[in-house]
């Protein structure tokens, strides 16, 4: 060490409102087709979210007992992780899986809304709440749900269900968790500290307890859905249900098991700091510069939230660094998925490069018009709603890519 090895994306597990699997997402985008977002406009009115598609949980979580140990957020992560491992062709035998490392980007676990409502109801007007709170919680909470609440239990469930037991780390901290998860996994592989790593996260948008938080923070906007770049000032984010897992692998390891790989992950880095417009633009510009993204055949996948000031700073940095490169805000399609958001952008980027698909604009204002070339590189950004920025550069695997790097 330090030794520097190529890092490949060799497996993708993506679930979003658009469907299940990277293949389903790519087939929607083939041939320059325009895509309509899938929205849930009734249940949380006047707010909208991107809902989960119908899933047969048993397809990736065979035991009903395991399914019962989790709520939707953890199940979604475990499901997407299973998709990624299967997609990478990593044999399910325990010997193989025990050599797979794991970094999960996780938010908070799930609460029992009925119990929370009961507690609030029963404690109204009570002066000394403590004793009654203790009594109600002690009798109403289900012990198993505590485990659904712990951030690291998504990883724990992945270990149990999919037998991934190399190393297991869970990163928290909203969008920054996803950025750091990919950065750490890639750095470990490049340096020879790991050969193959499952990295990902999930976000379940159909959770009223979380929507209350975002509403308190002023991040949700009532009314009609608009594409990310058309939400103006102050803008808003639309939560999206997403499970996004990648298998990252050293090129040697992938070659040894004849795994083709979707794309090469050339660079990933994150940063944080003051969020005034100038500082933010400068920081994003610095991250883009460090990625050494070149203009040629480049697709930019922006992880913008839809919050106006953040969008403006990011777009200014992109316009200066890679002017004219076709730009797509993947949040317009998937919604904003917090811990899983950056990972979802990488999943789409790697998938699009593998098939040379240039997606049509994801809708609405501000995305550069359809470009007529097949992308050979993808710059993926993530700009957290409260903090954390990240940039990754993917490049296509194949004759063209090899010529360029030679």
């Amino acid at each position, binding site marked *: *060490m330090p030794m520097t090895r190529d890092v490949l994306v060799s497996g993708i597990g993506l679930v979003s409102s658009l469907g299940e699997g990277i293949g389903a997402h790519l087939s929607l985008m083939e041939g320059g087709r325009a895509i309509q977002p899938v929205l849930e406009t009734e249940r949380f009115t006047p707010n909208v979210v991107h809902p989960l598609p119908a899933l047969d949980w048993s397809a990736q979580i065979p035991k009903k007992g395991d399914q019962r140990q989790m709520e939707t957020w953890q199940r979604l992560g475990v499901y997407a992780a299973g998709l990624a491992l299967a997609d990478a062709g990593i044999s399910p035998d*325990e010997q193989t899986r025990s050599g797979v490392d794991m970094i999960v980007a*996780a*938010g*908070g*676990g799930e*609460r029992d809304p009925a119990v*929370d*409502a*009961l*507690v*609030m*109801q029963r*404690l*109204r007007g009570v002066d*000394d709440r403590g004793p009654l*709170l*203790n009594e109600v*919680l*002690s009798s109403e*909470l289900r*012990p198993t749900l*505590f*485990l659904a*609440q*712990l951030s*690291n239990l998504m*990883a*724990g469930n992945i*270990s*149990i269900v999919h037998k*991934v*037991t190399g*190393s*297991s*780390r*869970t*990163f*928290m*901290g*909203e969008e*920054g*968790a996803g950025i750091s998860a990919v950065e*750490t996994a890639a*750095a*470990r592989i490049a*340096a020879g*500290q790991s050969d193959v790593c499952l990295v990902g996260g999930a976000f379940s948008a159909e959770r009223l*307890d979380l*929507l*209350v*938080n*975002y*509403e*308190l*923070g*002023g991040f949700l906007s009532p009314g009609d859905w608009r594409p990310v770049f058309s939400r103006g000032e102050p803008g808003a984010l639309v939560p999206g249900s997403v499970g996004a897992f990648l298998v990252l692998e050293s090129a040697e390891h992938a070659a040894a098991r004849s795994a083709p790989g979707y794309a090469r992950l050339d660079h990933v*880095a994150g940063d*944080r700091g003051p969020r005034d417009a100038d500082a933010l633009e400068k920081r994003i510009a610095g991250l883009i510069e460090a990625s050494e993204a070149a203009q040629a055949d480049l697709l930019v996948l922006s992880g913008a939230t839809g919050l106006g000031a953040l969008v403006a700073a990011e777009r200014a940095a992109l316009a200066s660094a890679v002017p004219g490169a076709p730009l797509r805000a993947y949040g317009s399609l998937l919604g904003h998925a917090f811990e899983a958001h950056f990972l979802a952008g990488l999943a789409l980027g790697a998938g699009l490069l593998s098939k040379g698909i240039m997606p049509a604009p994801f809708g609405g204002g501000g995305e550069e018009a359809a470009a007529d070339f097949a992308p050979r590189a993808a710059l993926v950004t993530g700009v957290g709603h409260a903090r*954390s920025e990240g940039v990754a550069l993917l490049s296509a695997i194949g004759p063209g890519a090899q010529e360029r790097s030679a």
Partner: protein
Amino acid sequence: MSADFDHLGRPVVAVTGLGLVTSLGQGVEDNWAALREGRSGIHSITRFSTQNLRTTIAGTVDFMKVEPWTGIDLSYALAESAGREALAMAGLSAGEIGGPLFLAAPPIELEWPARFALDAMDGSAREEAGYERLMEIARSHRSSATYDLTLFGGISERLADILGTRGLPVTLSTACASGASAIQLGVEAIRRGETSRCIAIGTDGSVGAEALIRFSLLSALSTQNDVPEKASKPFSKDRDGFVMAEGAGAVVLESLASARARGATVYGVLLGCGEKADDFHRTRSKPDGSPIIATIKAGLDDAGLSPSDIGYVNAHGTSTPENDRMEHLGLSAVFGEALAGTPVSSSKSMIGHTLTAAGAIEAVISLLAMRDGSLPPTINYEQADPAIALDTVPNKARNADVSATLSNSFGFGGQNVSLVLGREPRS
């Protein structure tokens, strides 16, 4: 200089600063003095009502006033205290660290007082309590201050500014192994040559009613409330669960070459890190102990040491019937006959189980034990468990010349990490 690199050609990782806060006090030296005296920081809970609870004791940190208490704010305050102390000890001022922050922090959500306060506001047509009502109230009562209390990236954001760390901090949770995982991430970053310095902190200030009740419902907690300081009794026959506690531990990690170049004092080295996830059960270890065994072995292998090189084990030692038994099984399998001659004590007998912070706190204690040649005891060890034959350093600290220690951490969700620490770089 070749000694700047280890047996695998990686940069040697030195510890140049330490920080500590527990219920025993604030600061490395106060804590260390108390630990050597065998004092307990466990006491009756005063932060919230314990009426109707089976467990009424904890190792809360009550002397750092965070008003009103929130788990986030106290976890931050503890981390800041330990982090500042570690930086000062390393002879660095904020901004001079020039490297990243790895923070182990508890997953904390909105607390009950915040929900009650919201429910009591007007702004909703519905009377019926629940998140539908809170949603309507939130629309007309936006509060970024309340929102900030729901963000897991908030603590590291504040710390990064105060301590002057570089880049995107990592906030991690591997349950009760978190503090050790934070150190492991730092060791790996230095070994990769990504940075020459970083700071790793484990913090937990999250002892509230709901958290206590949830662990209680899992039958994980001691209910021996009558004499709080006697409740945590790792490896004893009459142990009946762990005692929740709070605190923070911090280490400044630095490549040995960097530490030497600036003339920094080296308090010890991180010789190795081992890790292995368990796929058996969400709260229990695989009965054959294989993941624990693999974790300890991986730590020793990474350090290039064998069990006979280890002079002291700072055990995970929670005082739950299952954990202590499984840790003994794991140590027996790896150490074999060498275990009889290896002291194994649990700091949790005195400071309780600081959950997310424990691995970092115990790494600091391990380094102090080597620095001063003094092994902290396992207090309350009055009834030996015949099934757990260990030299637990019972009840009184012991002088010993130790050059390498093993510090174990095992957590819910199958999270296992072992750190191997050394007094000085291996020659």
